[in-house]
């Protein structure tokens, strides 16, 4: 208690100096938390989009499908399998799809298109497909076109589009479908090329009745993806072709991009930490050197070096700790607000962002580990800085110091 009292009061011997140092720690923590929150928030957004539109957190697919996404790698999917996989602990929904590439033609234009055979209700739960409709709806025997594909083909509601391609095991896939709906998917990549059919219609088109290209799996919140993956894999025959992949396996480019982004972010943070570290060190250095005589006197009258070193350790940790606590208290409400209210990008930036397949918003992550890690790093830095006075005290020549 005596040492803590001394340390606390010593901090306020130079009130301005201590406050400036604490402020610098405060701003360092605030900036680091916000930067990391935006960084992770944007990554979480990218993952969320990719997972909900393309892959799911887990996906059942043929082992060769990832390398060559061909209809030849469709696999049988029935209600019995559906029930078995739906019963796996943590599964929220299963979203079967048939996916194939065709030529789509209107009376005057032809374009390449990706046909997605979907179950609208399950897609709605996965990516809010229903809310993306700008006209019409799904109807049996009809087709729903993404807005830009419809524009390219010069088609509107009620017009007919002809699809021509290759189905399962090289069978011909051909059909004429009335346009019953137009959607505007969030991702520009999908807006240019997607045509939606009801799953049974797509299975007929591709001569793949009772088969799917993939089944996307969405978990309940906080469910363990790896545990689900193991459980699902155990439901599949060991010598079969179908396997369960997780989103990290399915989106290696996205993971690499995130890693690269994380690396750049870390460089910026390290520079910030170094600047702040030297700020704290400057204060601690001055606090130490200007009290050389006092340290000498304290040891002379009977204070062990260890206790003196502990006092200086308290001082540095208090100095950094108060800045860190203030930084956390300052950043929490900001992060909480922006977590609930993502910042919309301006029209130009928004378009640019959409072109990269990212929502035109700046998302913030409120993951508690961000606060813990930033606080931990700054406190670790303080502990490192605190070594200086500890070493200084241990090497102090008491006789010379007390007579300085």
């Amino acid at each position, binding site marked *: 208690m*005596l040492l803590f009292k*001394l340390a606390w*009061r*010593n901090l*306020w*011997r130079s009130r301005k100096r201590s406050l400036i140092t604490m402020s610098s720690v405060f701003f360092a923590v605030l900036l680091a938390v916000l930067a990391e929150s935006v960084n992770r928030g944007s990554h979480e957004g990218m993952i969320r989009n990719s997972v909900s539109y393309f892959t799911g957190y887990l996906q059942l697919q043929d082992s060769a499908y990832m390398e060559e996404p061909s209809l030849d790698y469709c696999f049988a999917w029935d209600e019995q399998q559906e029930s078995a996989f739906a019963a796996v602990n943590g599964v929220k929904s299963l979203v079967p799809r048939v996916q194939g590439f065709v030529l789509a033609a209107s009376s005057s234009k032809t374009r390449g298109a990706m046909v997605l055979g979907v179950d609208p209700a399950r897609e709605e739960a996965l990516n809010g497909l229903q809310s993306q409709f700008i006209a019409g709806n799904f109807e049996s025997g009809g087709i729903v076109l993404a807005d830009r594909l419809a524009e390219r083909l010069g088609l509107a509601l009620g017009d007919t589009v002809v699809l021509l391609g290759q189905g399962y095991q090289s069978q011909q896939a051909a059909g004429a479908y009335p346009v019953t709906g137009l959607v505007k998917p969030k991702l520009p990549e999908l807006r240019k090329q997607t045509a939606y059919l009801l799953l049974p219609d797509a299975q007929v088109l591709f001569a793949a009745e009772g088969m799917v290209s993939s089944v996307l799996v969405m978990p309940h919140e906080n469910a363990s993806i790896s545990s689900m993956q193991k459980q699902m894999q155990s439901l599949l025959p060991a010598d079969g072709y179908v396997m369960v992949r997780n989103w990290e396996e399915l989106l290696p480019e996205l993971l690499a991009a995130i890693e690269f982004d994380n690396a750049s972010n870390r460089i910026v943070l390290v520079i910030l930490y170094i600047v702040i570290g030297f700020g704290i060190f400057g204060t601690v250095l001055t606090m130490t050197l200007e009290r050389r*005589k*006092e340290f000498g*006197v*304290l*040891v*002379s*009258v*009977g*204070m*062990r*070096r260890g*206790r003196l070193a502990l006092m200086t350790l308290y001082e540095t940790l208090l100095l950094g700790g108060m800045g860190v606590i203030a930084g956390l208290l300052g950043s929490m409400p900001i992060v909480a607000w922006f977590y609930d209210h993502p910042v919309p990008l301006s029209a130009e930036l928004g378009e640019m962002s959409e072109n990269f397949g990212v929502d035109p918003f700046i998302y913030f992550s409120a993951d508690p580990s961000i606060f813990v890690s930033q606080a931990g790093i700054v406190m670790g830095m303080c502990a490192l800085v605190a070594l200086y006075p500890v070493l200084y005290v241990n090497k102090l020549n*008491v*006789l010379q110091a*007390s*007579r300085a």
Partner: protein
Amino acid sequence: MTPVLQTLSLSKTYNEGPVDVHALRNINLEILPGEFTVIVGPSGSGKTTLLNMLGGLDTPSEGKVFVAGTDISNMSENELIDFRLHHIGFVFQAYNLIPVLTAEENVSFILDLQGRPAGEIKARAAEVLAEVGLADRAKNRPSELSGGQQQRVAVARALAARPQYVLADEPTANLDSATAFSLLDTMKRLNEDEKMTFLFSTHDPRVIDRASRVITLVDGEISSDERR
């Protein structure tokens, strides 16, 4: 009577380059309980070095220092620190109080380090502050006290743990005459009333006049030792 402090053939030699500097040579000394002793001598005569040896702040090159029969010459650093904490009081020329503590807390500091109970610390601090005439300044920090008052607090701090002796290095050097007289009167009274042993290093004739014993050092050797 057992001496509070005793040295046997005490010598201190500093190696400064090729030259050996003999700061103290063959000092044999006994300080008895209750003595009010001053060590005098010209600059460089070894007063401060002797005081450092007697205070366990420096180790002799040869010889021994006994405090109440205990040899402190070969103690480890931590043993010496603990020994100083429990057995020796220090008064410095520049007061050297802890600036962030009040007068009362400065006096309590040594007792706190000794781990005494809070109640005892408070009572003893109040008692010693009253003895040096500063009961009414207990809550003031050093910066709010005059030089003389600060030195009184330093004396109170030195006495608080009832040490076996108090070492005072030029305690009046920074004080004006009136303040110095007053402080010396206080120390003399404590010496007489509580039989506290004081050992001064000084040039100040005001201190020498009050001493019961004057030891004169010249070139690291005792040239005279006069009891009054």
